[in-house]
């Protein structure tokens, strides 16, 4: 038999867990489904120093606390859910898992977050974890006294470049534009670092090597000049992609694949809200995800009350 919930939240990152806390506390029967582990991108942060009220902690600690809070208010949480089908269009919504379990619900909160953007080259995939990395804090020390490249020119790329300069012998920062998008103070710090070299206006053509990465091949956007950069490692920080495939085709997305919402985080589908990094917005932080989770939960409660009337 189908099990019925008032609300199903997709995603157990900070946005989804916060929505779970608010909805559980308001006694709405709530289930959070996550296709992976609890915590979302926060588990990738060793240290979070900008979450107000907590001086410094790890992302995992923050998300485990949120999980305990959500559960203490009666919210159910299922990590590693293998979702087969979601029906969001009608007033009675449903999700079916691959094991055949089916849950019906009235309101959905989509809080599926994002993942690091990749370049999309076959050779990039081939060298992931064999020289190509997306996490400086995790893999930096493998490149002690070795040359590396960093791809990207925003705040994350340049901040990570500074962090990686503690390990690497030489860093080539490869960027697609003729200037960096990062804050001026970060650009200044990077430019003053003697380990850094800059390759601007480049298209990444190929990653090459034997068992592990040995060089990055790039082409100048205007002149067409090919540059071969010998490296042992390459860190890619070119932004994030919204995990919106769950609602693709049913909910309105912008041209970057992010869910479009109004101020109360309603999507175009009645009873479907979106919160956190998956929705179209400028700033993506734990605090903004948590704020979204709160707004979506409050608006969802109002919708539930409207349905009861």
């Amino acid at each position: 038999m189908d099990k019925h919930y008032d609300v199903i939240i997709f995603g157990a990152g900070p946005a989804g867990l916060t929505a779970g806390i608010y909805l559980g506390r308001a006694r709405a029967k709530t289930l959070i489904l996550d296709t992976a582990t609890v915590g979302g991108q926060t588990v990738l942060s060793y240290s979070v120093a900008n979450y107000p009220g907590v001086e410094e902690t790890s992302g995992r600690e923050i998300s485990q606390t949120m999980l305990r809070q959500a559960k203490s208010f009666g919210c159910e949480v299922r990590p590693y859910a293998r979702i087969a089908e979601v029906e969001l269009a009608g007033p009675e919504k449903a999700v079916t898992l691959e094991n055949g379990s089916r849950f019906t619900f009235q309101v959905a909160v989509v809080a599926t977050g994002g993942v690091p953007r990749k370049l999309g080259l076959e050779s990039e995939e081939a060298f992931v974890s064999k020289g190509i990395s997306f996490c400086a804090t995790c893999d930096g020390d493998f490149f002690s006294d070795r040359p590396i490249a960093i791809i990207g020119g925003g705040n994350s790329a340049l901040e990570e470049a500074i962090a990686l300069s503690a390990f690497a012998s030489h860093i080539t920062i490869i960027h697609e534009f003729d200037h960096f998008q990062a804050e001026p103070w970060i650009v200044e710090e990077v430019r003053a670092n003697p380990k850094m070299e800059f390759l601007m206006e480049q298209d990444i053509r190929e990653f090459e090597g034997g068992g592990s990465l040995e060089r990055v091949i790039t082409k100048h956007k205007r002149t067409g000049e090919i540059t071969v950069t010998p490296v042992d490692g390459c860190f890619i920080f070119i932004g994030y992609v919204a995990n919106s495939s769950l609602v693709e085709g049913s909910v309105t997305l912008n041209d970057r694949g992010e869910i479009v919402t109004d101020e109360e985080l309603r999507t175009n589908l009645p009873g479907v809200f979106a919160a956190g990094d998956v929705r179209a917005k400028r700033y993506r932080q734990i605090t903004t995800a948590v704020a979204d989770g709160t707004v979506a939960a409050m608006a969802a409660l109002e919708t539930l009350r409207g349905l009861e009337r």
Partner: protein
Amino acid sequence: MLQTGLNHIESQPDFESLVRDNEKVMLCCGRMGPMCLPVYDIMESLGEDYANVAFRDMDFDGPASSIVRRLPHVRDFFSLPFTIYYNNGEVVHATSGIQTHQQVTESLDRAFGTAS
């Protein structure tokens, strides 16, 4: 020392009895880092579905890690965790870096046949 719900391999004798007493072993060698934690969580969640597999972790900075670090299979690995699959004491598969639930089950099925 790793703080996980898995049993830890902390010494050469630990490792020797692990592979002597268990035909199928998945050993994850990492730190308490962001790319490692999800893999430990996944291993903890798979105990029931793969009851015939011994799931263990090992501290990458501990003395026993030389068992994994010196394997030829990890020569080109640059991302933690290093995850090694042993069948009858032989390495049959190895991965580097964070893995999804699906990637781990695919690796288990590839190394040992499908879930018990």
